[in-house]
């Protein structure tokens, strides 16, 4: 059970406090309710590029990292399709430095042309390093637009193409900042050996004077129910074929999200999971095979991915995955299997709560999802799942007309 306090400043900033007196480190996490899904389809990759610019200085501070390092701290951030999350850890005595730094960049970013110019190059190199200059690096750049035709999940956080990043202008940067970075759009969580009164005082002092900005109301078009089987085949200069099969799945807040997540555990968590056991060890048809959920807030994807063994065609590999699907939709999962994956959920929850930073990130995320208290309800949601739930949700998801297949073929040399 994670205990916490929550309050809101007059300008709309939500603040969560969690006390953990076992650590000399304090975690300072600030989540902004903006992600790649809020981008213009012609200017993708922007939320992530913007995250880089947030480290390029604010009106009173030339460079974000130097004063933080001077205070013995470290910082980083990530952008997803849903959120942009900034986090720092530092010695608890120096907590105020984090308040100073993060409030100044929320108050007024510096918008220096040099920072934009350099970070465009850095992000382009990131694009190359992670998506283009790696075998199979472009899989998600292909799979997303296959599965999503309307919803902005059709592009990856890095963006659709390098050109979108090259074309980003300072006007775009400013507009994005004022549209998405306001106190009303942020959730701050401070976790560590610190009292709530102090967090209140510091929040009021550093963030209280920042004006509320116009609330951005998100209006995303929902992805229509997929009712056609989709298949894309590409050839690339890679050593072996790879197969990806994606199914639309329930949204993050629904009960069935948890069921889908547990189905991915039954199929693919640990070496005793079905796919590995059956298709890697017992009847070796794949070198490697996994099933996982994308974990996004709106309707995400349930993905099977595998590298077929030598002499196993992509068609045969697809048939084998359908066979595994047939089993989970036609037979009830065994009681022992279900108990096993529930035990895994319980223990990984305990391991996840060992780090104060993890706790701060989770509290912020659940607050965005609905309420920070959900952090204490997660495990029970998994534990309440029945064998029939598993079968029902598997049947609902794993339909041919809900499936998008990417055949990633190795070019014949």
């Amino acid at each position, binding site marked *: 059970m994670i205990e916490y306090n929550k309050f809101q400043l007059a300008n709309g900033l939500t603040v969560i406090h969690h006390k953990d007196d076992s650590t000399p480190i304090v975690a300072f996490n600030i989540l902004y309710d903006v992600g790649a899904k809020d981008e213009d389809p012609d200017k993708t990759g922007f939320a992530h590029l913007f995250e880089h610019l947030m480290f390029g200085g604010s009106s009173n501070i030339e460079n974000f990292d130097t004063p933080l390092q*001077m205070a013995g701290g470290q910082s980083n951030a990530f952008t997803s399709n849903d959120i942009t999350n900034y986090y720092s850890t530092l010695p608890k005595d120096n907590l*105020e430095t984090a308040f100073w730094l993060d409030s100044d960049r929320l108050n007024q970013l510096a918008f220096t042309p040099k920072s934009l110019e350099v970070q465009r190059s850095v992000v382009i190199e990131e694009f190359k390093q992670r998506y283009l200059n790696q075998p199979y690096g472009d899989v998600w750049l292909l799979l997303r637009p296959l599965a999503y035709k309307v919803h902005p999940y059709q592009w990856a956080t890095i963006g659709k193409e390098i050109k979108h990043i090259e074309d980003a202008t300072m006007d775009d940067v400013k507009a994005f900042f004022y549209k998405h970075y306001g106190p009303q759009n942020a959730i701050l969580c401070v976790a560590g050996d610190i009292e709530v009164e102090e967090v209140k005082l510091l929040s009021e002092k550093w963030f209280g004077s920042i004006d509320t900005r116009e609330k951005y109301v998100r209006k995303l078009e929902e992805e229509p129910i997929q009712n056609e089987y989709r298949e894309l085949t590409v050839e690339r200069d890679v*050593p072996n074929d790879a197969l990806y099969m994606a199914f639309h799945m329930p949204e993050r807040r629904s009960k069935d999200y948890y069921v889908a997540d547990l189905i991915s555990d039954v199929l693919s968590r640990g*070496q005793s999971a079905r796919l590995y*056991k059956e298709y890697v060890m017992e009847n070796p048809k794949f070198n490697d095979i996994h099933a996982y959920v994308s974990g996004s807030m709106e309707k995400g994807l349930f993905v099977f991915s595998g590298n077929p063994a030598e002499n196993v065609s992509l068609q045969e590999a697809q048939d084998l995955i359908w066979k595994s699907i047939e089993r989970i939709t036609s037979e009830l999962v065994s009681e022992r299997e279900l108990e096993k994956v529930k035990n*895994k959920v319980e223990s990984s929850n305990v391991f996840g709560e060992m780090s104060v930073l993890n706790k701060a990130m989770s509290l912020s995320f659940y607050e965005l999802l609905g309420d920070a208290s959900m952090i204490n309800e997660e495990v029970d949601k998994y534990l309440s799942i029945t064998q029939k739930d598993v079968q029902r949700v598997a049947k609902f998801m794993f339909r041919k007309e809900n499936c998008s297949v990417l055949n990633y073929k190795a070019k014949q040399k």
Partner: protein
Amino acid sequence: MDFSRANAPAIKTISKVNFPAPKTYHLDNGIEVNTFNLGSQEAVQIELVFSVSRNEGKNPLVAKAVNEIIGEASSTKGPGVLNEAIDFHGAFLESTYSIDHSSVSLFTLTKKIDDVLPLFQEVVLDAVFPKREVDIYLTNAKQKFIVNQEKVDTLVRRLYSQHLYGDHYYAGRTELNHYDEVSSEDLSEFYSKYYTASNCKIIVSGKFDDSLIEALNKSIGKMPIGIKSDLNHPVSRSDNGKYFHEKKGAIQSGIRVGKILDVKYGSDEYFKLKILNTVLGGYFGSRLMSNIREDKGYTYGIGSNISFMKNACTFNIATEVGADVTKETLKEIYLEIGKLSDEKISEDELSVVKNYLLGSILKASDGAFSLAQQFKGVSFLGENLTFFQRYINVIGSVTSDELQQIAKTYLNNATMLEAVAGNG
């Protein structure tokens, strides 16, 4: 309001970090057990660290394969049975492997220890390596190997260590043919010789009852003594050449620059080198990052490190950069190395580095699992946790003059080895 955004809040400098010493026990077969029993989460890690030289195997693949396959089967349980039983209790195994050691860890909730300890005992004391499962492993590992050969990062790492270590087994690269030459007998033999008490140390961390030590004695305490692996093979070699591996069509180049350092682990000079390395490439605000990423935008990331192994200490710079700026990046790297000898570090920069390092040491002391990992690192090289207080003392006292002297002694550009993989 009574404050100004222009003024940074006051900060406190760390002068002492508390690294609680472990409690030490010995099992009947002589295995040393060090424990860190603290924290509030009801979870435990039991790590068995085997000091095993990869030189002992038929080829470099053997040590790795043993480490990765262990747990698959025992003399009484067929393939997958142990894994399933451990999974069932929500526990998991983690195998890690480095140039000097192989380790096998059990992670479990404290309340499940009695259920999973007997299974863990079987994993490490009674492992078998069935031919069929070994063959599957080798086929799949070979495919991964082939995929990795497509990455400039892999290619440059291999090229670099080949020239850094020459004919020493630290250079012992796995080659494609090794996957066809290893048999299940090779693995069994390696396992029974070296996964033994004379090579093993145990670190237990988390929250647990003292009775766990007796339980470990009754289980792991039965591990046979075995043959002590000979880890002593000093590397003495220096290659300052420039090497290139062509990878047609690569849009980025992998770069490594570095050398072998002759320095004693835990000495003042060693600590000063660590501090100097931090200035150069050891943190986000480092000179390499500031210049090559934050000023020029040539890369997504660049860093340097000092790595201490049983038989060598190395200094290494690593990055992946746009193919068109490979030469420019190398020029800037050498410029930054040279500046360490040519110019004194400013007081401002040095104090940022000092405070940053003190903060990271504080973070390293946070929690039982992290303490255990720190202890593992230093104790393997003959130190204990007082290492960190000595490091803190050197951070406190070191001057720019001393660091410049260290740079002149150890980091001369003419002594650097250079490796690049990319589109020529």
